[in-house]
């Protein structure tokens, strides 16, 4: 009895400690965003200071935050919708009309995620240049969609696999074609799963930096490029950089916070059953 309480206490303290360690950089970043440049680099770092919005003012004055943010929203949502549009039929056929090669195909799709993106930067860059997709939103949407497609197909596949085949067959007996089967039966039945898959795809796209930095310059640059623009060769301006970063991650952080329940449910959907 006694030892079990001690054990619980120890585990709780450990969990809090880990959570604090993980959260600390974000906390520090947000804090630094409200400091002056001088305070930001002070040693020892000051925990108590007079908060100022000067960092934010300067950031807003130097760059068009709204434009970057709109690009981020368009690219994240666009790539997610496109990925879902392609992944739903793909996962449907893999889950309900499997062939002996379905498993291999799924593993192969996942294996592409293990390739370092820089390995294909050159060919992709040249392709984009020749197709005129450099620094365009549509180009970024396509590359993000391709980046997330394996994960989206995998997740949808596991959700679809949980749908009893009988229900779709009953639909077929009732006169549903494949499209109606998917729209009226499969999608409504797996909506929680599709939603969490979409959310994950949005978050991954939002946070993606490698491709956006390499394939965009100005007109299609999303928030990740916005942050990067504050780490200039002339030296780092920590306060401004922190303010910019805070602004860049705030929307997705809030979205993640609001949909936490949905995310956890979706991600563990197939696992606990």
């Amino acid at each position, binding site marked *: 009895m006694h030892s079990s309480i001690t054990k619980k206490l120890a585990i709780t303290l450990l969990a809090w400690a880990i959570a604090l360690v993980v959260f600390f950089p974000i906390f520090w970043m947000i804090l630094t965003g409200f400091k002056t440049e001088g305070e930001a680099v002070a040693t020892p770092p000051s925990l108590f200071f007079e908060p100022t919005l000067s960092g934010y003012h300067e950031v807003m004055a130097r760059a068009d935050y709204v434009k970057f943010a709109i690009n981020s929203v368009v690219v994240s949502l666009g790539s997610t919708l496109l990925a879902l549009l392609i992944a739903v039929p793909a996962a449907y056929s893999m889950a309900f009309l499997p062939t002996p090669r379905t498993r291999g195909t799924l593993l192969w799709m996942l294996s592409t995620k293990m390739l370092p993106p820089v390995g294909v930067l050159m060919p992709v860059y040249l392709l984009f240049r020749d197709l005129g997709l450099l620094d365009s939103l549509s180009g970024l949407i396509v590359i993000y969609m391709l980046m997330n497609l394996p994960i989206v197909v995998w997740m949808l596949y596991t959700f679809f696999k949980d749908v*009893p085949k*009988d*229900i779709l*067959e*009953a*639909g*077929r*007996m*009732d*006169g*549903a074609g494949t499209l*109606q089967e998917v729209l*009226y*039966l499969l999608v*409504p*039945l797996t909506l929680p799963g599709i939603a969490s898959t979409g959310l994950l795809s949005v978050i991954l796209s939002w946070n993606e930096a490698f491709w956006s930095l390499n394939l965009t310059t100005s007109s299609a640059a999303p928030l990740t490029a916005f942050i990067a623009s504050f780490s200039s060769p002339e030296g780092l301006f920590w306060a401004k950089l922190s303010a910019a970063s805070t602004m860049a991650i705030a929307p997705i952080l809030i979205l993640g916070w609001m949909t936490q329940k949905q995310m956890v449910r979706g991600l563990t959907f197939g696992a606990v059953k």
Partner: protein
Amino acid sequence: MATLELNNIVKDFAGTQVIKGVDLEVKDREFVVFVGPSGCGKSTLLRMIAGLESVSSGDILIDGQRMNEVGPAERGLSMVFQSYALYPHMSVEDNMGFSLRLAKVPKAERREKVLEAARILQLENLLERKPKALSGGQRQRVAIGRAIVRNPSIFLFDEPLSNLDAALRVQMRIELARLHEELDATMIYVTHDQIEAMTMADKIVVLQGGIVEQVGSPMALYHHPRNRFVAGFIGSPKMNFIDVEVRDARGEGVSVRLPGGGEYLVPVDASGCQAGDTLSLGIRPEHLTLDDNGPLEGEITVIERLGGVTSLYVRCHGEEWILVTDGEVSHRVRDNVRFGFAPARAHLFAEDGLALTHLERHPLVDVERRQNRASTAADVS
């Protein structure tokens, strides 16, 4: 009008034949039951009729039209699944009306048809509910309702009662039989439960290993099984089988010698067998009778009292026999009993399993089920 004809239907699954050439004719308004042990291909055959499974070779004809390449919905059939397969995100009404919605039937007409089916199945009060909020029996009725709404030419049932508890199963069995009368529809029903087969069918199709073993009325299968498999499969407890030696084969039947010395003249067609052959004698437990002068004697090893009837397991000449007797017998385990049977009740099976034909047909074999019914829909209303 709805008839079904299967001509030499074959199903190949990756090189393995699961249906090996099935021929069958289903008449209009007939209640046909496919029965057989699990893995015999009965569900596969039903799914092929439904159009959910492709046909490797052979023809499926509905009302004389070849349907092999026609999609499931266009065949004009309805299917009730073992798992009910209700649409979990739709209300009972939407579940039942889904096919009409897909067929773009106007809302008012749709509602009317759904209400009509709901009335037949007493589901009127549940129309707003989701399947989750229904009991097993209610879900089953919704599944049947969904089939009725489509007004199909043939109803297909794939083990629809096997997920229900025993009491409900009996009740639904009776409801289904009544529904068959009321709708006057052709129905094909798959089950592994021989009681369901016996009680509901006009015609039973016994399947084993993808082959039709016998097609016939329940009484034909019971009294004149074509082979040893059908004899053992139909009837509960199982038929007793015992090896016997042929003493004489003549016009009136085959005379066989039982272990222990008794001799019986079984009235079957004797052609093709001769004295000295070994045959298998089959006799149903309910056709064995306790008889102090009976030719067989043995010791009781187990007694199962069910109240109305009692099953006795008797060890006799190294074989276990099962007798179903009157519930009032007062024997105990390890008692010695003598028993016998009427020779006309016995069956003889040749070495290849085929039954020797009885010289006389049982009178009930050709009695139609409809004549058997105490009440029909017309009487009720």
